[in-house]
């Protein structure tokens, strides 16, 4: 009996060796996941206006001012097993629909591979008037709109972390800027440069920072609603600020503001050339006020 043991052990080892050497057993073959690059661009042929609808489901997003000869350009690296690129342009309305849409509907799909992150870069014309409608899913976004001709802006984020900059004054007058944040972290920097007449923010859960610094060219109205989370307001000292607050279970620290009932005003509100009227509604969370020079 004991003589058979080495033979059996050798047979077992040989079987395991065969199993390990089998190409079909390679996990790499099963776990094959393909990244692809997709680029879409359009030359500028005298267009003066562009409506951009970007729907980006997941990944990292960068938005920047583009080259003078391009109306727009999007470069995306995506997982072709889970997403498909979207690009369409309607010439009569001047509307470009861009982005990355998830494939399929129901059923089990392998989880996204963290080692193969999706990347997208969108360059926008620095000369055409832009109406931007950005819908971001599970996205880490870095959006720079400074120096562009933004006439309207709508940003809707899901479970994302997005930083939006107006590093330079908007080259066009912006009628409205709307931010809708889900379970997300949203930071908007330089709203004073946005030149938007009306700004609205609606936050679900998470944290949001609205920075109103920049070169103010006109007064503005802001309506902000935060359901659950923390809202930080960075207010420039040079602008007269009036804040109307409607809160439920929220804390509010009116640093530097004088309370008049449910209204808070900065000392220079009556005399300031540019005024910022804020209407805040919060349910659960906190509102912080920070002053910037």
């Amino acid at each position, binding site marked *: 009996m004991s003589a058979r043991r080495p033979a059996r052990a050798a047979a077992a080892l040989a079987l395991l060796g065969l199993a390990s050497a089998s190409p079909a057993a390679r996990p790499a073959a099963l*776990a094959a996941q393909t990244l692809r690059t997709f680029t879409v661009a359009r*030359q500028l042929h005298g267009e003066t206006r562009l409506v951009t609808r970007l729907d980006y489901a997941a990944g990292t997003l960068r938005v920047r001012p583009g080259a003078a000869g391009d109306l727009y350009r999007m470069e995306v690296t995506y997982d072709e097993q889970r997403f498909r690129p979207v690009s369409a*342009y309607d010439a009569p309305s001047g509307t470009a629909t861009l982005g990355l849409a998830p494939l399929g509907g129901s059923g089990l799909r392998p989880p996204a591979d963290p080692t193969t992150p999706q990347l997208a870069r969108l360059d926008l014309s620095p000369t055409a008037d832009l109406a931007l409608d950005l819908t971001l899913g599970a996205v880490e976004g870095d959006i720079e709109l400074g120096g562009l001709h933004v006439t309207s802006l709508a940003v809707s984020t899901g479970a994302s972390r997005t930083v939006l900059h107006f590093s330079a004054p908007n080259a066009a007058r912006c009628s409205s800027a709307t931010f809708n944040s889900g379970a997300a972290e949203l930071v908007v920097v330089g709203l004073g440069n946005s030149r938007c007449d009306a700004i609205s923010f609606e936050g679900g859960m998470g944290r949001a920072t609205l920075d109103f610094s920049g070169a103010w060219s006109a007064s503005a109205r802001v309506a902000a609603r935060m359901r659950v989370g923390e809202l930080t307001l960075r207010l420039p000292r040079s602008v007269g600020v009036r804040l109307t607050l409607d809160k439920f279970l929220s804390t509010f620290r009116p640093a530097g503001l004088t309370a008049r009932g449910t209204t808070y005003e900065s000392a220079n509100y009556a005399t300031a050339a540019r005024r910022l009227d804020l209407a805040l509604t919060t349910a659960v969370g906190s509102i912080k006020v920070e002053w910037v020079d």
Partner: protein
Amino acid sequence: MRAGNAGPARPRSGGVRARRVGALLTTLAACSLLAARPADAASCRSTTHSRTTTDATTAAADAGGNRLTSTVHEVWSLVSDVSELRPGDVVTLVRQMRAGARDARVAREGRQAASRVAADSQAPAAAHPGVPAQAIPPAGPGGLTVDLGTLDRPTLLESRLRPLTELPASEVRVTVPGGEARLGDFRLAADQTLAGPLLVVRGDADIYGRLHGNLVTLNGDAIVHPGAVVTGDVLALRGEVRDLGGEITGEIRTLGAPLTTAGAERGETPAGTRALGRIAGVLGLFLTAAALGLGLVVFGRRNLEIVSDTITHSFGRAFLTGLVGQLLLVPTFGMLVVGLVLSVVGILLLPFAIVIYGLLAVIGIVGGYLAVAHAMGETYTRRRLARGDLTTANSARYLMLGLGALFALWAAWAAFGWVPVAGDLIQLAAVLVTWLLGTVGFGAALLSRAGLREQFAGRLIPPEALTDEYLWATPQFGVPAVRRPGAPTTPGARTPTHGPERR
């Protein structure tokens, strides 16, 4: 202006590095063979240079004609790429070189270099290697027909056109409604005008003239030269759109070739490396458990043996106790916290209580697991002792044997966990067995109060076992009494009867 291959900067993956090194080695080898011919060598220099430097530096090096600098740069680039290789990359490189695989990027760069050498943009485009330039005949009824009127779904279009890349040139057939299809490189001269969509397969489309319609290239580049006009969309599938100054009124789209096709090529740890890592992890855990167990043998052998005996003699009871103990672990903790919070002293004691509770739980689980190993080893060793295979035994031997058995499953998972299905099954078995025995050990630790109570350890000897009286006493049951001499032969009633008739 380039519309393709200008994606966001990404870290170079192992597969890309391997391909770069492979391409460089191949090119350098070819150039060494052609070194005797100055013209070819110059071409090679330009070709290899284009793989490692930008166009600007290539132009500068070519203008200077400094061959030594170029060679040093090539060697340095090669050394740099080789230094970044990992073991998995080497495997990829060997596999690629063996298969003679050359990816689309290398081919494209080769064509770029060839076109750069050609210099004159008006010269005929270089022939696509291996593909004779020709018109593609229309497909017959039921054959492949692609409508190039709208190019909004490039991935869909590519999936339909993909078979054309695998067929021999003589068998390629496709119908383009209202347009035409070409195989191999195609050139539309400056004085030519073409109406309708154009499909170019396995070749570059050099547009100098006017194209009224969409342009699609598959496995090739779309090159729009200065003065050229394309009144439609341009789509390059597995290629690039190179706008050198022409006018394109429609969309410019590029769908690149897949960057990676397998997990190993996208920087994923190879199976061998993962297995080694897991084996090291399991070995580390084994050594840790062995160290703890030997410490327990030295400093708490009595407790360990009592828990071990509890497992041996009350396995089912220990399992049930462990199961209930696991279920009550969190509620008990909650009750403890709530109870302590109700008083000021309790609040002060709360941090200590939390730490002690956690510590006791860990001791119970880990100690119980080690006791399971001890019990397994003891059982096995006693069997060998009974057979005469062994002459000595001690707790340390029990423990190490048991731990070896317990970790055997995890070792199997570490070595073969990457095998599809079987690996998952091994892992599942290891988890279940570990949980089962851990539960038993935890229960035994609870039952024996961490080895302080021997009630369930089978060590309580019944009083009658303390004497040897049972060796000689008349058995009270099971042995028939001897019949008295002269007694009636027929047996009477077993049950004594009480009544006047007996009298």
